[in-house]
């Protein structure tokens, strides 16, 4: 079966193609060079249409226990947004935290073909993967959460050498089937359990006597030495605290040139100036990102409306519970591993803090020069549900629309932001970088995010429309692995994506000590903790794709 996509205007930054007319051929699920002497079975006339690779969300909370806690906490979120079945899709519900099937359909209907869950707790990894296995169409993967677990912190207290820590990190990645390592409030989730209510970058966890800075350095080194493509994925200290811009700058500086990804950096870019002691650190952060080439970031843009925040950062979620809207929240301990906090939020444009948060996120997007190092996220659902991406893209691409919106927010917030003076408008090529090519590169997806021959044919086709929100909300066609899954913004075929993982090497000897540790301290046995490959494939629709590590070893 040979499919030809004829005459579309292609934006494929990975191959340096910026708005050129190209024909694309698809055979057996992959993009191929123009074949000789083969009959074209199906042709799509894409003249005048915009063609990009399928979009990839690098940071979206779509699997794991916190999602289910949010669903239980907010039945009204599901009641108010029912989705009826169609001939090909099943029913579901939910706005801020949709059910799994609806998550997959809605992503695909916006032209997304992959999403990565950034907080897979190793002890809950099986549930997270099972939940993601129920999300149709999308490829997925998980970043394994380390940095507040008892075992790692014990190793650091005991001053175990870097090699031993590397082995533990690689073993955990293997056991929990992850593609990257995530740190949430390094050491802080653990410190919360020892009654610390804040933890600065150089403040010691009162029990383990290690600091967040040491944890970040140790894990960033492990990630680099293991050859994992995605840099250490860091949710920093002091999320949401006015004045945390200093902590964030210090975190960038303190990593000593190691690759590091700072996630939802908008929440970490607050100063303490002005009458309300809350100001924008957006310009400083963007300038620091521009200067430190080892740093990448996603923004975690907030957009106004009802959502729910779900995070492993129980320390900060506990501190923010007073802002819960509606007034109900959950914080919990996850064994020796981590924690969890779920707090519903309603971001309001007439609230000074929310309005300024909105402006800070946009400042960062617009002031970071290099679109290869900043990525489009709302930290779904924490800043806004992922369904608001088309709106966010319009804010980035359309200055007059942005300024119209700016004029409607809290007047004091308007005075505290430079947003109105920023002229930059993202181009289609830059959007393709920050949602496709750049994301595939930073996560280390070998054959996705670009339209190169040999790649899997994840392709999205849009009708060019000056209203970018309309354009990105409703693609004409979406192909996943070469199959047409969406036509005119509606799912027409349901397929099942693969799960991306990495497999760095480790010394199997590490299991001797882990075995003793599990038997003594954890409710789960070591043998059950490790997820086997079969668990992904035995239902007949899931699969594992191993992405290469830098050492070349699989």
């Amino acid at each position, binding site marked *: 079966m040979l499919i030809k996509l004829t005459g579309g205007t292609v934006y494929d930054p990975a191959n340096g193609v910026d708005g050129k007319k190209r024909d694309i051929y698809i055979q057996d699920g992959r993009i191929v060079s123009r074949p000789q002497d083969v009959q074209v079975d199906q042709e799509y006339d894409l003249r005048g249409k915009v063609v990009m690779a399928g979009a990839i969300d690098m940071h979206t909370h779509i699997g794991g226990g916190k999602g289910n806690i949010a669903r239980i*906490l*907010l*039945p*009204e979120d599901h009641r108010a947004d029912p989705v009826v079945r169609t001939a090909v899709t099943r029913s579901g519900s939910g706005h801020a935290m949709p059910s799994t099937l609806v998550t997959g359909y809605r992503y695909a209907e916006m032209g997304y073909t992959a999403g990565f869950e950034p907080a897979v707790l190793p002890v809950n990894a099986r549930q997270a993967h099972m939940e993601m296995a129920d999300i149709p169409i999308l490829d997925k993967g998980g970043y394994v959460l380390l940095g507040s677990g008892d075992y790692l912190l014990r190793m650091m207290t005991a001053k175990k050498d870097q090699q031993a820590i590397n082995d533990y990190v690689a073993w955990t990645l293997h056991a929990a089937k992850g593609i990257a390592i995530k740190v949430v409030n390094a050491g802080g989730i653990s410190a919360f359990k020892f009654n610390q209510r804040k933890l600065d970058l150089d403040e010691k966890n009162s029990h383990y006597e290690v600091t967040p800075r040491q944890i970040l350095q140790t894990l960033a080194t492990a990630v680099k030495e293991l050859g994992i493509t995605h840099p250490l994925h860091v949710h920093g200290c002091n999320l949401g605290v006015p004045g945390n811009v200093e902590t964030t700058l210090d975190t960038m500086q303190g990593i000593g040139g190691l690759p590091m990804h700072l996630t939802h950096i908008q929440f970490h870019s607050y100063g303490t100036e002005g009458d309300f002691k809350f100001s924008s650190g957006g310009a400083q952060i963007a300038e620091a990102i521009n200067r430190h080439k080892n740093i990448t970031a996603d923004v975690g843009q907030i957009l106004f409306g009802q959502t729910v925040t779900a995070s492993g950062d129980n320390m900060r979620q506990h501190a923010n519970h007073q802002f819960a809207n*509606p*007034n*109900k929240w959950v914080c919990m301990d996850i064994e020796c591993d981590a924690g969890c906090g779920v707090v519903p939020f309603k971001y309001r444009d007439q609230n000074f803090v929310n309005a300024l948060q909105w402006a800070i996120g946009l400042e960062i997007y617009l002031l970071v020069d290099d679109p290869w190092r900043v990525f489009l996220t709302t930290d779904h659902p924490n800043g806004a549900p992922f369904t608001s991406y088309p709106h966010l893209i319009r804010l980035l691409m359309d200055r007059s629309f942005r300024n119209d919106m700016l004029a409607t927010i809290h007047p004091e917030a308007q005075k505290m932001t430079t947003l109105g003076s920023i002229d930059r408008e993202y181009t289609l090529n830059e959007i393709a970088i920050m949602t496709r090519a750049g994301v595939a590169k930073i996560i280390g997806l070998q054959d996705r995010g670009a339209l190169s021959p040999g790649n899997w044919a994840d392709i999205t086709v849009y009708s060019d429309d000056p209203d970018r929100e309309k354009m990105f909300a409703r693609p004409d066609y979406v192909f996943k692995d070469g199959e047409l899954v969406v036509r005119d913004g509606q799912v027409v075929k349901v397929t099942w994506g693969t799960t991306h993982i990495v497999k760095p090497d480790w010394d199997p000897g590490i299991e001797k000590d882990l075995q003793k540790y599990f038997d003594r301290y954890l409710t789960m046995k070591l043998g059950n903790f490790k997820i086997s490959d079969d668990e992904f494939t035995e239902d007949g629709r899931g699969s594992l794709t191993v992405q290469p590590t830098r050492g070349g070893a699989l």
Partner: protein
Amino acid sequence: MSAMTFALKHRPAQRVDMSPLVCQRLEGLDPADIAAIELINGKRKIRVDALFSISGSDAQHIVIANSFAKLDFIGRELQGGQITVQGSAGAYLGMAMQGGVIKVSQDAGMFAACEMKNGYLQIDGNAGDFLGAALPGNKQGMKGGTVLVKGDVGARAGDHMRRGNILIEGDAGDYCGSRMTAGTIAVMGQTGRYPGYAMRRGTLLLWRQPMLSAGFNDCGAHTLSFLPILFASFRGLDSRFADAGEAFNRVRRYGGDMAELGRGEVLVRI
């Protein structure tokens, strides 16, 4: 003009969402339009005239004849007028009603008067669990109006109740008045276990001694002059609550629930 009557022709196996059949949504519609309204019936839709024979033309007085326990959401968000249910009503009877009158000749299912805002709801039989409560996950239950139940009610009557009166001639189930923020629940019969569980404010007015939990403190016997005024307000009701012989002003007062704000009260007739 005679009352607009929907007589059930047969009892469907699956539940029916009756929310389109309220006075304000039928006012001014042609009979053909009303007949063509689609109701959700289980996972299918069914036309009104496939389920009911329709007669009468006064949309301000709707009668549902031969009603039974699978007709849900009767009188949802009713703004005015009257709905008379001959037979039983299903779940969510009078949910979020804003005004008007609903009368049911037999029983009602769970979540009757759920998040009701105003108006009058009378159930001549029994009511299920969560009478006058909030929907699961919501923080505010009934916010106004009066509910009268002549029979018994299930558990959690008045859960998260905020304002208004719930009058129960029979017995109440467990957790009566749980998590109340304000409002009044009067029970002539027996109450079950944990009455007033986690109540913050509000009043439980009881004719019989309840089994109170440790979160309630005995505040002694009182003569309360507001009680005759309260009973006087019930005088127009078709109920034993209107009977002067049932009124009293001498009560033992218990304050609680001390596990919560503790400003609620349980008043027991002495």
